[in-house]
């Protein structure tokens, strides 16, 4: 269980969060959905410890932590592959930076390359592969962190629609096959509805939770699922400020 409670942050006298709280179930897929510029990325900077919060506490499995930098893996919109390393060397970075056992890790990475459809590309350089493959490699690297909590900061928003669809199913693997607890921020409603176990709607600055929805339909889901379609129009209404129907 990840618990964020009472987080407050101000930048240049502008309040980004005041008393923001959130709790995420273990092995669940929690998606934070909000309009662009509502402070989602700042929230991730706070969680990962890049910027400190003014007040508030973070708990992971009951233990209070200054930030999640040491317990979470992180993936963002840019694949952040180092241009001077091959895909394999990039995937091994989390192991290399902590002087881990590279030989064993290489076998593990090899299996992941195969599982995520990158077999045969281990030796390629990042500029030689497409954006989708780069993001798959970033996914392998994320798994090589070997951490149970994964923070996803709009990981697919730089990809084209088709590549995105295949990568969404790979993201699901993180939950079903690798037992990760996932927290993703996105502004793409459909992506949120396809992946989330719990959908958290955020308001613009100061950021607050506007509503929570538990999605029960089994995954992988289809866009034409009536439950999703109903929820989608409801969520859209909330995000755009139209309709005040709180019952659902």
């Amino acid at each position, binding site marked *: 269980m990840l618990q964020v409670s009472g987080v407050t942050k101000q930048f240049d006298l502008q309040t980004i969060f005041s008393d923001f709280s959130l709790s995420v179930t273990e092995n669940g897929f929690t998606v934070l959905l909000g309009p662009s510029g509502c402070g989602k990325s700042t929230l991730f900077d706070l969680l990962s410890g890049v910027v400190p919060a003014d007040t508030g506490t973070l708990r992971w499995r009951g233990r209070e932590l200054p930030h999640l930098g040491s317990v*979470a893996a992180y993936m963002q919109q840019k694949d952040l592959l*180092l241009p*001077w390393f091959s895909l394999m060397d990039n995937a091994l970075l989390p192991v290399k*930076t902590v*002087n881990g056992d590279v030989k064993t890790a290489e076998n593990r990475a090899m299996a992941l390359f195969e599982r995520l459809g990158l077999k045969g590309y281990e030796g390629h350089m990042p500029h030689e592969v497409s954006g989708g493959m780069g993001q798959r490699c970033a996914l392998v690297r994320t798994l090589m962190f070997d951490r149970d909590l994964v923070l996803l900061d709009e990981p697919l928003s730089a990809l084209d629609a088709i590549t995105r669809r295949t990568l969404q199913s790979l993201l699901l693997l993180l939950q079903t096959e690798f037992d990760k607890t996932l927290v993703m921020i996105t502004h793409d409603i459909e992506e949120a509805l396809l992946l989330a176990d719990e959908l958290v709607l955020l308001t613009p600055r100061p950021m607050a939770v506007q509503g929570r929805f538990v999605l029960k339909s089994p995954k992988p889901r289809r866009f034409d699922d009536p439950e999703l379609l109903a929820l989608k129009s409801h969520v859209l209404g909330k995000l755009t400020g139209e309709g005040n129907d709180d019952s659902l």
Partner: protein
Amino acid sequence: MIRSNLVALAVAGVLLCLWEGGCRFFGVPGFILPPPSVIVVTAVMKAPLIAPHAAVTFLEIILGIALALAVAVPLAMAMFAMPAMERALAPFLVASQAVPVFALAPLLVVWLGYGIASKVFMAGVIIFFPILVSLLEGFKSCNRDFQTLFRLMGGGFWKTMTLLYWPWALPHFFAGLKVGVTVATIGAVIGEWVGAQQGLGYLMIQSNARLKVDLVFAAILWLSIMGLLLWGFVGRLEKRVVTWKNNPM
């Protein structure tokens, strides 16, 4: 690329022809300004005389580069790791560049002697600054998202340095080194002018005093070729090492 090289060659050709023609047409005495053809012939024919001096100057430059690297590289890393140190040292380093190094040449000869040490030091002092500044700027320009990634991976200072900051800064470093090696010749020659028993600068001073202006120009020609070779070598080394492009992101 080839086109622009051709244009440059054509311009050089025209200038050389004007020089050659002017010298011959106006009958300029050889001890004032020899025509380029004479300079080239001297540079080649007097090679046995020039080569030992060139070897000394070359050695001074190489050692000067090594000295500059040995000081600038650790200093750049220290200043990058400790911003307080950068704030403390930066004004002095900039001020040191405002001091004309050539004015120090006679002092260096007094301190370090007539041997190659004073010349190595002169060359080193000149190259030191571009290397330091370019490397430090290279480290500092590193993409912020990469830094965050390394922080989350729990990479310590040295790991982050070798896996991230150094590769990132290498293109900057080579740019500084290329500037450095081309101006290194200046430092070595000035050092030799002030007091030396050998080297191309020494040969120039000696030849000038004897009105052997063709030999002065021949030494300059050798010196320029030496600088170009060093520049070319660093350029090739860079192509070998830096096989990627840093995407600015």
